[in-house]
């Protein structure tokens, strides 16, 4: 009861229109419409390119980078890891639909048996533990390479995340949505403050990318990191920027946030892995 009260209080304080109880379908319409209106010259599929969809100046540099993509080695590494048998002789292919090729589009989804959102990374580690291997670290390294390879084979498919008519799935979605609009940290900002309200504006010298299409291209190679990182590594970075304690990678908070945010990109192509500043 106490928890419920807290949530109600948070919602009434925020008072943002998107935080009301609308169906995911309705949310998606409003969300997409907002960005299409804010960036009228950007076609829907272009939002897969983050800040480069709206900034011609940095786009040129980025296109030059994409000629010799910095994530290429990781994709090759990922392919090799993917095809290397576990000690029991099986490979990752045994755990996934279609032998794991082109299946990043299945994630995230609500796993009714586990009662939680399954992400590509959690599925990779579930596959490992099922086959007697130790789980990988969540944010970078082998898991990012494997995810990069799996994202690569999924390129060109369209994001089409489903929220089934299961109350627990809807609750996970709603939790992710609440998270997206909730103020956090000493600096008191929500994800939406930067990537919805101020998308296209500059925070100091950084242009803020639109939330639409945000999760099309993960894992991502960031020059700032010097290697690839997963979606939850990025989430943690954005939380730290506002001096909030980040959640753990693959915590229900981040998985639900990923569920909401990927659903909001339905209709946009999968184009991972990506390269960003």
């Amino acid at each position, binding site marked *: 009861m106490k928890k419920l009260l807290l949530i109600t209080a948070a919602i009434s*304080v*925020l*008072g*943002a229109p998107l935080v009301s109880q609308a169906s995911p379908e309705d949310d998606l319409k409003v969300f997409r419409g907002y960005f299409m209106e804010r960036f009228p010259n950007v076609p829907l599929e272009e939002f897969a390119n983050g800040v480069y969809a709206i900034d011609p100046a940095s786009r040129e540099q980025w296109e030059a980078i994409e000629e010799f993509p910095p994530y290429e080695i990781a994709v090759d590494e990922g392919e090799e890891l993917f095809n290397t048998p576990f000690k029991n002789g099986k490979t990752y292919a045994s755990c996934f639909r279609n032998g794991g090729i082109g299946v990043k589009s299945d994630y995230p989804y609500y796993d009714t048996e586990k009662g939680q959102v399954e992400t590509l990374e959690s599925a990779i580690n579930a596959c490992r533990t099922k086959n007697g291997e130790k789980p990988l670290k969540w944010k970078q390294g082998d898991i990012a390479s494997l995810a990069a390879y799996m994202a690569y084979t999924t390129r060109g498919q369209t994001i089409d995340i489903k929220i089934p008519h299961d109350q627990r799935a809807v609750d996970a979605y709603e939790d992710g949505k609440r998270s997206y609009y909730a103020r956090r940290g*000493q*600096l*008191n*900002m929500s994800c939406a*403050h*930067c990537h919805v*309200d*101020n998308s296209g*504006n*500059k*925070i*100091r*010298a*950084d242009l803020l990318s639109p939330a639409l299409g945000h999760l099309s291209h993960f894992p991502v190679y960031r020059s700032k990191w010097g290697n690839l990182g997963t979606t939850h590594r990025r989430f943690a970075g954005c939380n730290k920027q506002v001096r909030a304690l980040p959640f753990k990678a693959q915590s229900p908070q981040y998985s639900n946030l990923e569920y909401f945010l990927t659903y909001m990109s339905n209709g946009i192509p999968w184009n991972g892995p990506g390269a960003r500043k």
Partner: protein
Amino acid sequence: MQKTAKNPRVTVGALVIMLGSFAIAPGVASAAEMSAVEEGKKIAFHRKKGNCLACHKIAGGSLAGNIGPALVNMKARFADKAKLRAKIYDATASSPNTIMPPFGKHKILTKSELDKVVEFIYTL
């Protein structure tokens, strides 16, 4: 006082500016107020403190963001200095959905840092 002794050149510079401002508007700024303005500027521009440039264009600062309005004509915008202080202390009190951090309320700046920032912003 010790600080002044350590850095005589700055003191002389500040004195010259002070004398200048006395000449134009006698009695507008005391020595203490002048140094509060200077310190306030440093705090406002410092990335780990005010970092106001992340969002506001401010005279004298570079690489400013454009999330908030340029900070100009502050005396005209805020006839009452207390209102300016209140804005910086907690911008959400007057604009509930604002992205601007509540510098005082969330103790991002100490009371004395905030006071100095107000002094600086009020000169803009």
